[in-house]
């Protein structure tokens, strides 16, 4: 608006100036010429002169005004694209510069076959993970992963990571997947299977695994010969799904994890971890559940990728020790799994899993699965899993379920790279 009114004001002042000039001009020459024209008809002479002056000044003012308006138009024409560019590219974008990187990962699962134990729907958009990730300030970054399931929205993870702390510390604060074992640290969409293995389901509180709310502190522990080692200590509130239940505020859950990673050769590496966790359970006042885990991953992936062959072997062993009235049941569970890359976009895999139940180690579920995965591109993945699980029921009965799981995962947006 102001850009419109200003030239108008300027034109007005110019006009006033011109008018005063005109008046001044009228008086001075009139006085000077008064003598010479005195002997002619003074009134007519004066009138002609005034007319003459009026005409010339009018012309001059018009010329000036035209020049001014031309200049103004020129200036506006030159300014227009700049103004447009700055409103389109600059102003508007400067507010989006600091927007977090956004991504959505769709996870569609279709299930065929028969199971009375775990009644998965025939088709489900099981989880849509919305990731929002950005750097907060020079000291921290933030990561949010909101999980949209069929029952609603849940903050799967939401934490700040302090990346510039002294003493080689890395601190996370918020809600996060705990570093207990290996599988539990990973989001559903980066698992090598469409489902969680039985040891997570039976011993870590269900399909979701253990997600804790609290603080995590990790430190690199120097070891000789370029071996990576990291110790993590985590303190969470005592409530966590079906795994831990706190009666009072001071009932907390703890997790400690020690990870060692070593490159055996350029293309082979071994990743191992030990975890110890404990937290309250609600079977009786003061009862605790203690958990231990060992995980190992062996990867072989030649850097000369022209052959597109790679192999990953992973395994995990959980032990759960749950204090409950009358007993102190110790339950074991684990899996071994392998993936082999056949071609650039094709992988085959297999998994064997077995796990006792945390509350009743007499019940033991086992399962075998075969997998085939195809990646049309880096951003989508089609996977089939044929699995047979043998669920142990009370009174020594069994239930065998053979199912085919078909999964399509697709990612849009800028999803941050995942930890190795």
């Amino acid at each position: 608006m102001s850009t419109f009114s200003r030239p108008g004001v300027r034109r007005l002042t110019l006009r006033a100036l011109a008018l005063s000039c005109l008046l001044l001009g009228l008086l001075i020459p009139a006085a000077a010429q008064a003598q010479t024209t005195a002997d002619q008809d003074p009134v007519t002479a004066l009138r002609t002169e005034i007319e003459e002056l009026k005409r010339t000044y009018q012309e001059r003012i018009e010329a000036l005004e035209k020049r001014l308006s031309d200049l103004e138009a020129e200036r506006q024409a030159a300014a227009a694209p700049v103004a447009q560019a700055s409103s389109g590219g600059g102003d508007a974008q400067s507010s989006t510069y600091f927007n977090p990187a956004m991504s959505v990962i769709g996870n569609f699962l279709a299930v065929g076959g028969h199971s009375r134990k775990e009644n998965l729907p025939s088709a489900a958009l099981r989880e849509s993970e919305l990731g929002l990730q950005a750097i907060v300030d020079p000291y921290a970054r933030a990561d949010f992963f909101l999980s949209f399931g069929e029952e609603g929205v849940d903050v799967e993870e939401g934490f700040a990571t302090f990346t510039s702390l002294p003493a080689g510390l890395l601190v996370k604060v918020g809600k996060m997947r705990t570093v207990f074992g290996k599988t539990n640290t990973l989001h559903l969409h980066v698992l090598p299977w469409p489902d969680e293995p039985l040891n997570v389901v039976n011993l870590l509180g269900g399909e979701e695994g253990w997600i804790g709310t609290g603080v995590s502190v990790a430190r690199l522990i120097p070891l000789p010969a370029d071996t990576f080692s990291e110790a993590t200590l985590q303190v969470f509130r005592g409530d966590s799904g079906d795994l831990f239940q706190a009666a009072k505020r001071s009932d907390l859950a703890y997790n400690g994890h020690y990870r060692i990673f070593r490159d055996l050769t350029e293309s082979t590496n071994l990743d191992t971890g030990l975890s110890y966790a404990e937290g309250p359970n609600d079977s009786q006042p003061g009862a605790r559940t203690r958990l231990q885990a060992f995980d190992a991953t062996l990867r072989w992936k030649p850097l000369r990728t022209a052959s597109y062959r790679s192999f990953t072997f992973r395994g995990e062993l959980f032990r759960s020790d749950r204090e409950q009235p009358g007993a102190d049941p110790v339950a074991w569970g684990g899996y071994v799994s392998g993936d082999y890359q056949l071609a650039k976009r094709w992988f085959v895999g297999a998994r064997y899993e077995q796990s006792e139940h945390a509350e009743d180690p007499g019940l033991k579920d086992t399962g075998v699965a075969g997998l085939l995965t195809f990646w049309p591109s880096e951003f989508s993945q089609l996977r089939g899993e044929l699995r047979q699980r043998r669920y142990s029921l009370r009174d020594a009965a069994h239930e065998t379920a053979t199912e085919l799981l078909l999964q399509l995962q697709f990612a849009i947006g800028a999803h941050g790279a995942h930890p190795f």
Partner: protein
Amino acid sequence: MKFSRILLSLLLLGGLAGAARPAEAKLRVVSTLQDFASIAAAIGGDRVETFSLAKGYQDPHFVDAKPSFVLQLSRTDLLIVAGLELEIGYLPPLIDQSRNDKIHAGSPGYLDASAGCDILGRPTGQVTRAMGDVHPYGNPHYWTEPENGRVIARAIAARLSQLDAAGRDTYAKNLAAFEQKLTAKEKEWDAKMAPYAGTKVVTFHDSWPNFAKHFKLQVVGHVEPKPGIPPSPTHTLDIINLITGQKVPAILVEPYFDLKTPKFIAEKTGVAVVTLYPSVGGTPAITDYFSLFDVDVDALVNALKGKK
């Protein structure tokens, strides 16, 4: 129970201990590509020690974010990256986990080598992933143009002088020597390639726009239908027709791609399949930035000699 207690105390002890690292005399330079490491070594001389995350024979788009790299980055003084989102798939989490704020973007210890370089293939108009694995900021394979190498060398020298003022003279001297050699070598390479100016080539991936621009080659097609998408039968047929129709003498293939499709095309058309190395270390003969072009230029000249 006892086992758990011991384990926990060990964890605690380990967390609190942590030996202090002795002060290093040399500046530690880590780069994502061996090319930058090689240039940094030439400029830094014995004042620096260099390490490269990706190896020259590795596809630089797919590097695993291995924890051993976290270890390297935790003690890095200068990190040199290609930028243009080439490292987007692995570098950001490594930097975060490194606990080393010297190498965060914006710090003096973080150098984006693409700054000031001649960057080609910046997409105009809308960019979507329907175009494959496109790089919205331009083609990240820019170091295959020797003049960009010169820009990178100057940037590295300036940054090393900033981080290690005592070595300023050494870096200036080494930069002058590098540039002098580069100028001489460029004349040699240009002379070898001059007879083949305007030659049409097909490349496997769109890795060579800068190389092609410098040596006046004309890239008329790619074996990949879209960046990052493996060859498809219909596209391969199109390429065969293109090669026959336009009398293309050579297909250039990076060492990390499967030669099956290029060889199939060669069988059908008689086109020469040339393995061209985009990076230092791509083959043992390529020990530095100069031998990168020595080897590639010779390979091209040998392949094109009979065809002209």
